[in-house]
């Protein structure tokens, strides 16, 4: 590969097109005529009229000068003067051998004998490797095998620049192609050392961290919480390792290439697996909503229970109040009755008794038997007595 073609980091001689490359071709004027005219013109310029040995020598010098100038133009210099842009380094070859390097500015080289190639060591270059993008190779896919024998599709981008122009120019025939192959092999190698989950971290499912709903309705994680794995860190780590390995490989080749960055731009699940993979997320969502519903139910249950418990306590408390207050009332009542009884004990007891009996018997059915009633009792038709009772009771109320 020639480095005079565009596309590389070198901005050296204008590629391909020679200064005379655009001369209109076709039937030109008669060549003899041209030479004659040229000779006349030169004769006018050169002292001595271009005649004699001195004139021939001058003619020769002029021709040489023109040749040198044209040759220089072809190689991007004007009589040996050329410029090196900022960020570039010019490598000077004398008859093919590298003799020196030049820094930016206006520089001079020995025309014809020396030529320069300017290479930028600052220019950031990008190499993208994505599925199906390599030219002339349709079979290329970005599918890679992981350590757990899964397939993953990885596109990546390599950012690089030339670190050593001399090495870059003269150690590898095809530095960019080499970079491409090396990058691809390194990325595949490290993908192969990683698990699928390292490259495409699974969704963090909160399910992994079980929760429990407490009696007061707050949701707290259960103790045995799985520590949250710093996902993504593996990928970052991997990226660093890949970059180091690629750099090492390129250094072994003495390629003069420096890798500034290597990014896995698109690690994705292969299309045939995509729906199954999405299914996992779907399952995660389903499980999550399932759990959420359970939490809702649990909250309702607990709220219910709390209300019920409160009500039970309140009822009991009310009972307590009720019986104690009733007892107090009864005690007070008794105390007062007792007081009056003690004051008039002779008739009070009789009066109480009679009042009570009056009330009790006054409202009830009665059968009064005279003496000897005891013997007659067994023969009384109790059913009849009973039957009359409701009517009697009704009247008495």
């Amino acid at each position, binding site marked *: 590969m020639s480095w005079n073609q565009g596309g590389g980091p070198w901005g050296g001689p204008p590629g391909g097109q020679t200064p005379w490359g655009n001369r209109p071709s076709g039937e030109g004027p008669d060549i003899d005529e041209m030479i004659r005219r040229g000779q006349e013109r030169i004769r006018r310029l050169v002292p001595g009229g271009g005649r004699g040995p001195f004139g021939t020598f001058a003619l020769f010098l002029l021709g040489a000068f023109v040749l040198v100038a044209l040759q220089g133009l072809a190689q991007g210099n004007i009589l040996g003067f050329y410029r090196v842009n900022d960020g570039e380094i010019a490598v000077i070859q004398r008859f093919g051998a590298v003799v020196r390097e030049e820094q930016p500015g206006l520089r001079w080289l020995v025309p014809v004998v020396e030529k320069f190639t300017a290479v930028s060591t600052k220019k950031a270059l990008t190499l993208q490797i994505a599925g199906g993008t390599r030219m002339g190779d349709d079979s290329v896919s970005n599918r890679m095998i992981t350590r757990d024998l899964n397939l993953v599709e990885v596109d990546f981008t390599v950012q690089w620049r030339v670190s050593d122009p001399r090495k870059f120019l003269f150690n590898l025939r*095809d530095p960019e192609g080499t970079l491409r*192959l090396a990058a691809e*092999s390194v990325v595949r190698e490290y993908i192969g050392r990683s698990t699928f989950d390292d490259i495409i971290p699974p969704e963090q499912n909160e399910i992994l961290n079980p929760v429990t709903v407490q009696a007061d309705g707050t949701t707290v994680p259960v103790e045995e919480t799985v520590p949250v794995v710093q996902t993504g860190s593996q990928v970052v780590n991997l990226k660093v390792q890949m970059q180091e390995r690629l750099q090492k490989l390129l250094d072994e080749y003495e390629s003069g290439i420096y890798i500034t960055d290597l990014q896995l731009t698109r690690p994705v699940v292969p299309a045939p697996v995509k729906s199954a993979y999405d299914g*996992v997320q779907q399952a995660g969502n389903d499980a999550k909503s*399932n759990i959420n519903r359970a939490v809702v139910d649990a909250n309702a249950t607990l709220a219910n229970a709390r209300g019920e418990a409160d009500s039970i306590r309140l009822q009991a408390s009310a009972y307590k109040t009720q019986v104690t207050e009733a007892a107090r009332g*009864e005690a007070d009542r008794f105390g007062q009755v007792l007081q009056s009884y003690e004051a008039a004990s002779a008739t009070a007891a009789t009066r109480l008794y009679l009042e009570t009996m009056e009330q009790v018997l006054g409202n009830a059915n009665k059968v009064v038997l005279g003496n000897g009633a005891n013997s007659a009792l067994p023969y009384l038709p109790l059913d009849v007595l009973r039957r009359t009772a409701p009517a009697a009771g009704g009247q008495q109320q």
Partner: protein
Amino acid sequence: MTPRSIIALAIAAFVAFVVSDSLFVVNQSESAVVRQFGRFVRETSEPGLQAKIPFVQEAIKFDRRILALDMPSQTLLVGQLQVVVDPFTRYQITDARAFLNSVGGSEDVLRGRLEPTVNSVLRAVFNRFRFEDILSEKRDQIMQEIREQVDKDVQAAGYGIRIVDVRIRRAEFPEQVTQSVFTRMISDRDRVASEIRGRGTSESRRIRAEAEATSTKLLAEAQRDAQRLRGEGDSEAIRIIGEATNKNPGFYNYYRTLQAYRTALGPGNTTFVLGEGDGFLNLFSKPSAPQ
């Protein structure tokens, strides 16, 4: 043009030709072999302008940079698995003379020789390992071994090159295996999904059951407290009434009995069968008041 100038031009051209044929340029990236009527004279990797005897000697130049041999993909057996690999080899012409003599200085000819060598070494070495090894850290070691073996073979064949490295650009399963890998991945994902779903179900059940258990506990505690409160109330009542009645137990007995009569035998369908002997009727047949 005059004949004289034509002759002068011819001479000049001849001189230029002689001079140019006695010099040759070796580029920084090249080495050259100088032969004299086919006989090897010297080899140089010194870049720059070099001299040779015109017409008699010829200079053949070679690229001494690292060259690539990107090989077509092929199916290998690694362990039990069929794997499609894309190897690539980097080599460098170290001995231009040997390179010239063995493969006529042609990289294409070399390619034809090198490919089978690399392939057979790959086959032989890979066959000894499991596929997992290729994916593991062992890969470097395996590729190193392959490189060394290829290098050894190449040295033995005397191609005048050295193998810089042999690498696997990609290693993939054949289409059929890929399909089965996908099937496995899908079933794997399905398994994970079902696990997650199952986990969700069991989790939600657990949460519900926990809530039930907690509420049962809450209610039991409430019942316990309620019984205590009731007991407290009852004992308080007993104490209060006891305190009051202890002042006169006999009267309390009397009074409370009467009260009980009133409530227990209260209005309703109670039928009393009374005889004269009963206390309430003891005046029934005694019209006179006691003295």
